């Protein structure tokens, strides 16, 4: 049972942990240097042994701590989830230790987080891109990357030679119409955020 005694005993003596909230499940924040040992303790002593998800959140280009990795673990005994937020210390080249040794399920999740955000996981056995092709230069889920994409050459050079195709930014005109809702209604008409740009055409403001 996840009750106050459980939370107290979990946090007791571990000053690298902070209780953030318990609205939908127990949410803690953990220091990146103690992550691996805490996960081992959770798996061996507290029956939290099913890693369900590992992902990251980009808090914006101007945020103080830009990237934070979010880990969700499930316990079959307590029948409840546990969420751990881990802030990445560096904003330019974020990296945290990998928990593949504790949970083998984390292997592919960490590869995906690296692919989408550029967060490096130390001592990961095979940190390669998994969803985009290996030579893709950008990390798509970062906030400054446009949805439409940036022009890069097609991964297979011979195909692009013959067909003339390239990875072009997708046309956003007529795209999802969303209103920003922050200013007066007359100024926040729903319009597609036309974000397609290349080196030749400037990004529209």
């Amino acid at each position, binding site marked *: 049972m996840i009750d106050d005694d459980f939370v107290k005993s979990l946090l007791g003596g571990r000053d690298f942990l902070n209780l953030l909230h318990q609205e939908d499940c127990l949410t803690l924040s953990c220091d990146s240097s103690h992550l691996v040992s805490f996960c081992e303790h959770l798996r061996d002593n507290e029956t939290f042994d099913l890693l369900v998800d590992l992902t990251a959140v980009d808090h914006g280009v101007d945020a103080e701590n830009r990237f934070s990795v979010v880990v969700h673990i499930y316990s079959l005994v307590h029948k409840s989830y546990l969420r751990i937020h881990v802030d990445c210390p560096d904003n330019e080249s974020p990296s945290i230790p990998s928990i593949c040794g504790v*949970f083998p*399920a984390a292997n592919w999740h960490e590869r995906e987080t690296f692919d989408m955000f550029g967060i490096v996981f130390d001592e990961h056995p095979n940190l390669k891109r*998994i*969803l985009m092709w290996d030579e893709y230069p950008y990390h798509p889920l970062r906030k400054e990357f446009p949805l439409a994409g940036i022009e890069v050459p097609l991964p297979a050079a011979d195909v692009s030679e013959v067909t003339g195709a390239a990875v072009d930014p997708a046309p956003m005109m007529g795209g*999802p119409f*969303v*209103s920003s*809702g922050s200013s007066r209604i007359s100024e926040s008409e*729903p319009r597609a955020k036309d974000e397609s740009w290349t080196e030749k055409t400037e990004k529209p403001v």
Partner: protein
Amino acid sequence: MSTTVKEVQVGDVGARAEMHADDGKMTLNVGPSHPTTHGVLRLLMELDGDRITRCEPVLGYLHRGDEKIAENMTYNQFVPYTDRLDYLAPLANNVAYAITVEKLAGVQLPERCEAIRVLICEMARISSHLLGMGVFGMDAGAWTPFMYTFTEREKLYTLFEELTGARFTTSYTRIGGVARDIPDGWLPKVEKFVDELPKALDEVEKLLTRNRIFLDRTEGIGTISKEDAIAFGITGPNLRASGVDLDLRKDKPYSGYEKYEFDVPIGTRGDCYDRYLVRIEEVRQSILIIKQVIATMPTGLWYAEDAKKIFAPQKEKIMTSMEELIQNFMIVTEGPQVPPGEVYFEAENPKGALGFYLVSKGGGVPYRLKIRAPSFCNLSILEKLAPGHMLSDITVILGSLDFVMGECDR
């Protein structure tokens, strides 16, 4: 002795083999386009004769950027994208996504809406498992069960079309309810379908379950132990076939599942045959649940009436009353207003536990939506599972894991 590599050009799709002269192993590329019908998965395999020594799956051939798209759309505009995640059971994905957002928004649903959602989730489960088993039979070499299960699925498609307007990719749920109420005369048709389904299921079982060839191809193949299954994050029928009792409908019931009585089949050995048996039994249990839902279907509304900034009011009121008109305008242009916070919710989908992690900073557009796809996690065990088996076992293993690349790559 220097290593000589002899390149052999084989004209067939996806097979280019290089022979290593020193250790005799062959690299085989089962390319993204291949006869097993699970979608675009590429396997880089190293073979020692006919035995697999290394198998590395390459994903990403269907990565469409759903999570980035979600950051640019309102909550209701994203519902069609959830259809196309696990495109064999689109209604179940819709329900899981809607419940996630409703949890964060704090919306309480009326009982009829919850019962409708349980009904369509179970019908989606039947649809997905029927296709999974038909294709599994086809992977093992049997063509007929595929035809039988597809005939049953066509009947389901007709029912879905009457309810939602589309055969599949239904986009039926909205945040705060469902798109429209059940039409008159639909529930008796569903009841007739589930009354006739056990007969068709028996025919498929007669062809496969005690079939000597099928047993030889699936028993003892692809055995996943309990510890491995938990360590690799596997959920759903694959996990239950390995002997772990985890079913989110029983352990963390959502949308009124606690009102219905059903059993959860658990396997013993964790091989391909067990996974097949678990799925067949789950279809039978879904039939029971559907019968109970139809017998006890509550009356009432199919949407949350008090969710003022979240669910658009009814058309008659919009056309006649000013307040409802403005409400509808705000919800359609700015999106359902969800308070800031984060939530993680998993639903028991036919393929496993489909989870949505939603971070909202207020407003009608999510800040971050992570889709925890069951097929992504189920497939990660393939690297450990495949070595030691024969080459022809790979199709059977892939068929029994029952994954869908639309979900895996998002």
